[in-house]
């Protein structure tokens, strides 16, 4: 405590930036022509890039102040707020790793929008920055009420991003997204209120020590999981995701898959396991069943898709199934694997959505059948797409492998059935990804519109190449992550064991 409130600064930096952009925009609104609008849009994007870049640097500062040896919350800030509810922030390895993912992906999202967003650009940038603050708040909060506010507030900018800058059926998708997540969250709200009343505090550290009676745990667990299961998403509450992804603009999909889904896994690890350990044990078989169902079911569905984005979206659901498997294995390998899988999936699926976005921007269709033979015109694109295809099927040497194999090894120790089911999904992932790649990139060019398609430009390369490098880096040296998350994983497990 004391010292510079780095976490608050980090969290609210994008929001402040967004407000600044709006003020400047309001002040200059007088002269508006189409030309000026375009210029001001570009200026706003640039400003957004600077702000989110600065936020990334701030998160690196937080990272450098982080002590690997301390498994508890660090960089804690606490100010009284209302009665026993306080404004309290802090991070452990788990939340810090997700914060870094968020701050890393946001500038990439904004840059990726450079050529693809042409309407209401300023508002778009504002929405993204506001979203970033809310996402960061979710991971920095150490108070349940504060957490809930960030968790819910994040819905609004995302709803707008899909609903305003989305595709043809954006309204349906936006409302579906909103409805599902809101319903889940309402149940969580009831649980939050109950917990606050029962424990007399909404401080994480108090709640972690407070032992709810087993039958109470069951209800609280269900209420929380209702919300996290939708976010993750788990089968069968996953159907909002394909629609949301397909309709969202590229950057929206990146942030959705990259960060928003991770809130579900984060929730499991932050609340379900340490605060409701008995209930978690009780529901372990249930969660394994849903995880395996998600992996196999959605992998098969992914294979049958004709829309590139939908395919990747279903593949996301399958890959998040590994997170559930790892988390509920209740052992270090599984939990570490699950955290790693969240980060790895954030990078890989984000990159895959960007990859789809590259050709969507050129052809304005996501239909797989409209493509084929891209390798003849876009060799760089083909190489990067191949890399992420392999990362998505979990080829060793990429980060995708580490997350999958560790969650399965962890899961195996809890249930051989669950591990076998998940391993089956690994076969299917090869089927759908290789089919997708083959139909879009290989073969002959049959669609004449593809004859003049251009390879990736430097903006797209700047967005995707860092993700490619990280995928390989974490695949070869995953200890970079494990060293950071080890303390929190062990701490969560010891709290489960009653320590």
């Amino acid at each position, binding site marked *: 405590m004391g010292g510079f409130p780095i976490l608050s600064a980090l969290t609210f930096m994008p929001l402040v930036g967004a407000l600044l952009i709006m003020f400047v925009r309001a002040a200059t609104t007088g002269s508006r022509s189409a030309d000026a609008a375009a210029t001001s849009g570009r200026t706003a994007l640039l400003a957004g890039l600077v702000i989110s870049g600065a936020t990334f640097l701030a998160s690196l500062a937080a990272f450098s102040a982080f002590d690997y040896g301390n498994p508890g919350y660090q960089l804690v800030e606490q100010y009284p707020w209302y009665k026993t509810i306080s404004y309290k922030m802090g991070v452990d390895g788990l939340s810090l790793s997700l914060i870094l993912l968020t701050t890393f992906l946001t500038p990439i999202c904004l840059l990726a929008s450079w050529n693809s967003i042409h309407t209401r650009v300023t508002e778009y940038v504002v929405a993204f920055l506001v979203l970033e603050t809310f996402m960061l708040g979710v991971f920095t909060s150490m108070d349940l009420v504060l957490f809930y506010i960030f968790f819910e507030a994040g819905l609004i900018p995302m709803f707008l991003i899909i609903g305003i800058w989305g595709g043809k059926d954006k309204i349906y998708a936006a409302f579906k997204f909103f409805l599902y997540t809101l319903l889940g969250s309402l149940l969580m709200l009831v649980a939050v209120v109950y917990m606050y009343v029962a424990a007399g505090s909404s401080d994480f550290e108090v709640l972690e020590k407070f032992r709810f009676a087993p039958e109470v745990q069951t209800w609280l667990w269900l209420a929380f999981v209702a919300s996290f299961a939708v976010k993750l998403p788990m089968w069968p509450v996953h159907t909002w995701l394909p629609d949301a992804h397909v309709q969202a603009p590229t950057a929206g999909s990146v942030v959705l898959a990259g960060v928003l889904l991770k809130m579900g896994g984060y929730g499991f690890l932050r609340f379900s396991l340490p605060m409701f350990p008995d209930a978690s044990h009780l529901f372990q078989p249930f969660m394994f069943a849903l995880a395996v169902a998600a992996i196999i079911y*959605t992998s098969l569905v992914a294979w049958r898709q004709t829309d590139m984005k939908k395919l990747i979206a279903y593949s996301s659901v399958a890959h998040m199934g590994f997170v559930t498997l790892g988390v509920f294995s209740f052992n270090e390998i599984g939990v570490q694997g699950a955290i790693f899988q969240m980060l790895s999936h954030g990078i890989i699926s984000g990159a895959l959505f960007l990859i789809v976005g590259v050709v969507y921007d050129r052809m304005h269709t996501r239909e797989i059948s409209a493509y084929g033979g891209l390798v003849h015109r876009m060799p760089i694109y083909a190489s990067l797409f191949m890399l992420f295809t392999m990362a998505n099927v979990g080829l060793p040497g990429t980060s995708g492998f580490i997350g999958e194999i560790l969650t399965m*090894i962890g899961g*195996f120790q809890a249930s051989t059935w669950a591990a076998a089911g998940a391993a089956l999904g690994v076969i299917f992932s090869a*089927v759908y990804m290789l*089919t997708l790649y083959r139909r879009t990139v*290989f*073969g002959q060019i049959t669609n004449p519109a593809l004859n003049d398609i251009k390879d990736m430009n430097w903006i797209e390369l700047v967005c995707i190449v860092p993700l490619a490098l990280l995928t390989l880096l974490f695949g070869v040296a995953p*200890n970079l992550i494990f060293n950071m998350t080890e303390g929190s994983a062990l701490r969560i497990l010891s709290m489960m064991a009653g320590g």
Partner: protein
Amino acid sequence: MLSDALIMFIVLAPGFVALTGLVHKWIGDRIVMTATTGVVLAAGALSLAQLFMYAAGVGHAGEQASTEHGEILTQHIIPLMPWIHIGEFNANWAIRVDTLSIVMMAVVTGVSGLVHLYSWGYMSEDPHRSRFFAYLSLFTFSMLMLVTADNFIQLFFGWEGVGLASYLLIGFWYQNKAPNDAAIKAFVTNRIGDFGLALGIMAVFCIFRTVEFGPFMAALRENTLVTPIAFAEAAPAREVTMDFLGHHLPALEVIGVLLFIGAMGKSAQFFLHVWLPDAMEGPTPVSALIHAATMVTAGVYLVCLLSPLYEYTIYAAGMVTVVGAVTALYAATVGMAQNDIKRVIAYSTCSQLGYMFFAAGVGAYEAAMFHLFTHAFFKALLFLGAGSVIHGMHHEQDMRRMGGLAKFMPLTYVAMLIGTIAIIGLGIPHTQIGFSGFFSKDAILESAFAGGVEHVSFGQMAFWFGIIAAFLTSFYSWRLIYMTFHGPMASDAHDDHAHAHDDHGHDAHGHDHTPHESPWVMLVPLGLLSLGAMFAGLYFHTYFVDHENEAFWAGAIYRAADNHILHARHEAPEWVIYLPLIVTLGGFVLATLTYYFNRGFGRKIADSGGPLHALFYNKWYFDEIYNATLVRGAALLGNLFWKADKKVIDAIGADGLAEVSQVTARRLSAMHTGRLYHYAFVIIGAALVFGGILWMRAGGVN
């Protein structure tokens, strides 16, 4: 043994040099080709030198560890960098140097170097040469990581890495449909095997608390007490039983079977063999390197490496024997009826891998490794020879359109003859006269017989299947020679252009369409491999399977105290020793009668449409059966689930909710009629109902 730096060069340099493929635009094809070929040839020369030094007993360096039972294990680990470290789970990047990896390094880099060189000729007109060479080097690197791993996770890295390289190279001519289909089929079928391999690795960690070979094998060799993480009680390593998928089973059997499923996928054994023949869609040098000499032998390598495991299993080892024996026979029957020159050799590979597996299954791991070693030479030779034929025939692969090529390409003919004599295992028993296959195949057959005598499960069966397969091998190998090189040139070879297979879209070259001998860059590798096919068996058999085998293997292969199979094979009766020669000659005679003296015979059988020919020609209908069941089944399920998403989950979930609220809203708004007497009616009615309820609660009439 070489210095650490040189060994690191052998293993890692091909990986680095593969990266030049990424920048070929700037540095040019020539530099990429020179760099990759040079590095891999240098690695090959070093590895071969290392093998010879090792065999000669010069510098048996490395740490010698004596186990309790007095066995000596010579092994040297070069750590590279940490990889995954979580709690007890430790897997590092490392290079393991022992006899097994030294043999494999020599095979991999030796053949790979020659294939690189050969490709200068074979791929000379391909516009994507750099990509091809980069993939070849990438493959070499992955394969070396596989064979030098000191833990299961790095092995898995190499295992899937070679799978990736294989996928990329099978689909090298990506503009065509067939290579793309074949590439995906190969990757996915291998993934089915990897499903088993991955589960096996998980089981190993769960029981032994390690994925590193050292402690895992030490526990098995010394039968130390292990304390599993879950599903099993602490017990001596060889006796642990575990719960797996609801069954209580011996842990070693579970692990052995699961890991062998991985081996079946990679080595194209029965049930999971379907990808290998299709993999022939790749360029022929690839078939020689990956789908004959090296990658497909990874499964055999795995079983031999895990000899401490398979020595203490009955069912898993029995499964290895049965699957190997069945594959050896099955693939030979199919090989007899194929007309595509590469497919014949592909099935032959499949069959020879079967020999290796049943040798390992009965406990003759050394014989399996020996056959792996000699097979690499003569099978690479046969494939590169076939490539030379295909090159000379302007990308014709159908043997029915060939014939009489001996006079057009005499050197290729000689090379193919050497390869054929080597693969059929021709040699004179009790002498040192014979080509490589003679030494290794006879060692395998005698071991299987000895296994049968000692009641090793399925030893008898393996021996007889092996004998029949040897007859068929001789038949189809000579059939290939006769159809390709002898007799008159098939008349339609000149004017029929329906040659789809190895065609990479430059029909323009070779305008006169006369078959021609290949350039020297292709002939030199053939010559060197011919030397190997002739003399590798003669030179190395004492080390691999005879007098000096214990000193040579130095503990890298483990045999249980009661496994004397390598000695017992020398006690086989005379008829067992002469039988392989007899059936080999029988196959030769039959092929000569039917394909040399009576050339129309093959077509007559094919035209007669007999059920047996149809069965063999159609590969026992495996593709058809798999397509009708597995592929269609998965597609149906996928479609069903997809519909369920819309029609069931959404109908109950979001869409249903929206529907219900809309209907409710409509009903509710319908009540707002705006007519006063409607409202009055409702108010009065409600008042009556509520009043009634209050009245009842207050006690009613009482």
